[in-house]
Each structure stands twice: as C-alpha cells, then as structure tokens.
C-alpha cells in the first residue's frame, strides 16, 4: 500500500470508509510524521494528540456501525492555523500577547470541521496576527520550507503550507488578508484558495483587517481543496458579513476540470503582473502554464488592469488602518498578557508596557502606520484615497470579467527566499503580496496551484487563477484541468518531488 502520509485527502477518506485503513491509523501516521520532522520544519505551535486520536476513533466507530460518513472528509487529518479559535487548545496568533490563551469558544470553521469528522491535529505557526509574508514574524520562531530548510515557507500561513509540503497533514486551513494562503501555497508547491469574501465565516477568526480577512482551504491537490472548501463554507448568522447564498459548486467543478477540457474557457493574462521584479524562472514557469491552458482548449487573451499598480500601496494603508483599530482590543485588561501591574503604574501605563512587550516589530510598525493613516489631516490623502483605489480595482475586475472567465498571473514574483533575506526591509517583504492583493481588495475568489519548478533555483512556482465573486468554481475547474495536464506531462504530482526530510528518531 502507498505510504499513508503521501495519500490525498480524498484517497484517505475513501480508504477509511472502505475499512482498508482506520482513521486512528491515519491520525497516528501523521502524528508520528510530526514527531519525526517537525523539529526541523516547525510547522506546528501545538499538537493536539489525544483529541485527534479520539476524533479519529469516533470516525472508526461510525464506519464499524455502518453509519453514513459525516462528510466526504471524515477521518482526514488537518492542520489549523493558529488564528482560528478551538476550545481546549491555545490560540496564540503567533504572538507573545496571546501566549497560552485558551479561547472560550470555537470558531465556526472549527465547529464545521469537527462536525464533518475532520481530525484536527493541531495549530500551525504564522506571522504574528497574520502580518507578514514569511512566517519569520512569529514570536515562537520561524517555520522552514520543506523544499529547502534555509528558506521561508511563505506567510502568514507558513505553518499550514509547510505542514502540507512536509506530509505532516494532507489538509490545512489558512487565512488570506493580502495573500497569506496563496503565497505560502505558491512557494511550497501546494494548493491554496482564498474563497469569495463573506463565504467562509470569520466568527472566531482573530481579526487583522476585517474587510479583507478570509479563511480558506489549503491542500496538496485541487480536489482536496474543493472538498475542504465545501466543508467550511456557508452562511453563518454569527458573522454579519457572511453572505446568505449557496456555496459555489467547487467539488463538481474540480471533478469536471480533471477531465482536461477547457474548450470555450476564456483566460485573461494580467499584463501588469510581469516584467521587472519577476524572477526569470517564475516568468518562464508561468508562461509554460499559460501555454498548457491553451493546449487544453482555453482561449488566451491579454488583459490590462491599470489600477492594479496601486493595489499594494492601497493595501498597506487599508490593512494597517483596520489593524490599528482591531488590535486595540489587546489592552491587558480582560485576557492576554499584562506587564507592569505592580501598584505604581496606571491602567494606561500597563497597557502601553504590555503592548510594547507583547507585540513584535512588524505589528508595531503596522499599528503606527494605521494610526498615522487615520489621523486627522491625513485621512483624506491616505485612507480616503486608498478607498477610491479600491473602487478602481473593483472596476478593473468588472471590466476584465466582462471579457474573460478567469484571470491568471504568477502568484508571487519570486520563489521562496532565504530566511532573514528580507527581514530588515519591510517594503521588499510587502512586495511578495503584489499579485495577490487585488482580489482581497475586491473580495473576489482567487487560488494558487503549483505550476512547476523554477529553472533558475529548482523551487516551486505558483499559478494564480482569479474568478469573479461567488464564481469560485471557475478557478477550481481551470486549476484541476491544469493540474491533471501538469502531472501527466511531468510524470506525477509536483509535490512528490520535494526532497526527503531527515527523520528524527
């Protein structure tokens, strides 16, 4: 039998239902893998061994009793980003501020996963409060990229992407505010999806930038991502921005796409996302992917979205502004860290001392930047203008989607960079999200699917596919068709070319 940890989620679920393997064996195999490689990778901040095995046992009992599966993913292990709450385990958001914090309620995403019989293995590392593109901003140390342990696994969801690429879990949950699911997917050779804003509940997702934050599925195949998407998506009255509409048929689209026919599909190549600043190997892999789509029958056209050039500056005003307001809740009074409460300091002083000790440099920079952008006298020039840019970006998408069904670009301009390489240069770090940000600002669906290895450094490259709001299934169809053709051309899944990790005994 194929080694359990190398199976896809869909394969695991089928084998569990067919009693070829028990869910407990599957969970144990992944827990063993975490024990063997996570010291080197550091994808997890918390491993929930006992409850994972209990959840797996419950799935096995359902199978033994002949009860129908709770979902198509019953018994499949998953790694949960540490920005979503789950009772009985700490939720830290990668911050000293929340070290050891036990949330008193479950996120809706967590509730849905548990109800679906998904086995949650633990909580994954991330840039502090999801601010970053490398996972180096975690207060608990960086996560390493399984393709090259000296390199970053992307961010902010680097723990989730690394867990997939290290075969520690076949599924993971990420959150994407400016690219934090897609960019980590791109640099680790895994699939990452940002669903349409409002289609996955934000209840229990610790807020960074509320108008942009969106949780979504991460996996090693397009079909697995789609199966997870349907488990976590859907209207939630506990999130006032949740859209009350049926979940787009993403699983059906992934299955349809796998047939490999894209005749009649119009694909637009965004002309703004090429040229200077793009690594040659990334551009070459992207061009080859576009040629592949053409071979599958898609019609390829170039589409100009001029306002996308202003997306990055607009994002770095809107997101920090919202963050400066959201993170005001960490005031050292009701939960989290408290420093300096010695009877001599006032509440305000304790607040300042606690926030100074509890937040890392990037979080402080963004709070200060957001406070600046929202200040009287600057508001119109900065925040107000950024909101106008947001309108222009939505108009560009609208015009583009009148001509094409999906838009494509590289997911990020480079492959995984070295740990430390951009740590002292915030603007260089921010540019990792250049291509992913427009879909956050406009709220539409977008995903990243691996598109080969860069010829200049042998590291994974991602193809970004953007779809209109609530048309998430379009991207899944194109991604699944591309994935099937890529695997056929390259003699098997890209992720199986990740180097073997040294296993600790």
């Amino acid at each position, binding site marked *: 039998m194929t080694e359990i940890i190398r199976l896809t989620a869909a394969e695991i679920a089928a084998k569990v239902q067919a009693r070829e393997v028990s869910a407990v064996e599957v969970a144990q195999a992944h827990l063993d893998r975490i024990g063997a490689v996570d010291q080197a990778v550091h994808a997890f901040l918390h491993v929930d061994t006992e409850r994972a095995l209990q959840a797996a046992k419950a799935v096995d009992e359902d199978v033994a009793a002949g009860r129908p599966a709770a979902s198509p993913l019953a018994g499949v292990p998953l790694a949960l980003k540490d920005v979503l709450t789950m009772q009985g385990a700490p939720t830290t958001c990668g911050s000293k501020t929340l070290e050891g914090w036990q949330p008193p309620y479950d996120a809706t995403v967590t509730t849905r996963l548990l109800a679906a019989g998904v086995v949650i293995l633990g909580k994954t590392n991330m840039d502090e409060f999801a601010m970053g593109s490398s996972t180096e901003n975690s207060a608990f140390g960086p996560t390493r990229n399984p393709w090259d342990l000296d390199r970053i696994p992307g961010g902010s969801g680097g723990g989730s992407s690394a867990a997939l690429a290290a075969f520690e879990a076949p599924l993971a949950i990420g959150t994407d505010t400016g690219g934090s699911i897609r960019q980590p997917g791109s640099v680790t050779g895994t699939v990452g999806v940002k669903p349409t804003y*409002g289609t996955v509940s934000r209840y229990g997702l610790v807020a960074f930038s509320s*108008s*942009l934050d969106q949780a979504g599925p991460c996996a090693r195949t397009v079909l697995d991502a789609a199966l997870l998407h349907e488990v976590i998506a859907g209207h939630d009255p506990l999130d006032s921005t949740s859209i009350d509409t049926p979940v787009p048929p993403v699983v059906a689209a992934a299955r349809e796409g796998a047939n490999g026919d894209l005749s009649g599909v119009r694909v637009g190549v965004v002309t703004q996302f090429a040229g200077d600043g793009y690594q040659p190997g990334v551009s070459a892999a992207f061009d080859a992917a576009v040629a592949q789509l053409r071979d599958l029958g898609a019609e390829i056209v170039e589409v100009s979205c001029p306002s996308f050039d202003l997306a990055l500056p607009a994002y*770095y005003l809107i997101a920090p502004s919202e963050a*400066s307001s959201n993170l005001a809740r960490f005031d050292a009074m009701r*939960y989290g860290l408290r420093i300096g409460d010695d009877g001599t300091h006032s*509440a305000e002083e304790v607040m*300042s001392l606690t926030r100074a000790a509890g937040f890392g440099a990037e979080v402080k920079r963004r709070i200060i930047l957001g406070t*600046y952008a929202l200040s009287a006298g600057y508001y119109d020039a*900065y925040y107000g203008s950024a909101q106008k840019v947001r309108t222009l970006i939505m108009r560009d998408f609208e015009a583009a989607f009148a001509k094409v069904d999906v838009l494509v670009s590289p997911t990020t301009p480079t492959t995984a960079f070295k740990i430390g390489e951009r740590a002292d240069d915030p603007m260089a770090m921010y540019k990792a999200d250049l291509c992913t940000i427009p879909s956050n600002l406009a709220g539409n669906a977008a995903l990243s699917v691996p598109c080969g290895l860069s010829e200049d450094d042998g590291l994974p490259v991602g193809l970004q596919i953007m779809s209109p709001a609530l048309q998430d299934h379009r991207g899944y169809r194109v991604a699944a068709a591309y994935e099937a053709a890529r695997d056929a051309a390259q003699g098997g899944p890209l992720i199986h070319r990740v180097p073997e990790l040294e296993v600790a005994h």
Partner: protein
Amino acid sequence: MPSISRDEVAHLARLARLAVTEAELDLFAGQLDQIVQAVAQVGQVADQDIPPTSHAVPLTNVFRRDLVRPGLTQQQALAAAPAAEDGRFRVPRILGEEA
C-alpha cells in the same frame, strides 16, 4: 514627497498606547518614512471624483431575531483574565495621582 519624522512616530506610538524604546524609534522612523513614501502613490487619485469602497460586499444592516441565547458564564469570561477579584476583572488604577 511626504515624510514622517522621529517625533511624529513617537507621538503616534503614544496615541496607539505603545511604549517604544529609543532604538525602536530610530528603526521605525526610517522604515515608516520609506513605507509612507511608497503608499503615498494613492494620492494620484485624491482629486478624482470616485466613490470610496470600504467593503467588498455592499453592507446593509444585518438583523437577527431577538432571541435569548446563552453567553459566556462568569467563570468562562474570567478564566483568561490577567487578574480577577471577587468575580470581576481587576484592573490597575485608571485615574492619575492628582485626580
């Protein structure tokens, strides 16, 4: 070009209730100046008559039925408190000495 001074960064940190060290001020002032210069590009649309977008999904008021449902118990609410006393959050003094 816009710029942000070290004093301005110190003032903003105070507004945001962040105690920053001298070394952090030196570092952040330079970095934030570079970031502000980059994001100031959005100013090219400042004079244009474009409606602002605050949210990707047009929001209207969202109501739910006014039903009683359980919230956190006192014990749950206080479980993660940095300090609690007599079933309440204990906080440092909120008024200055001269008050």
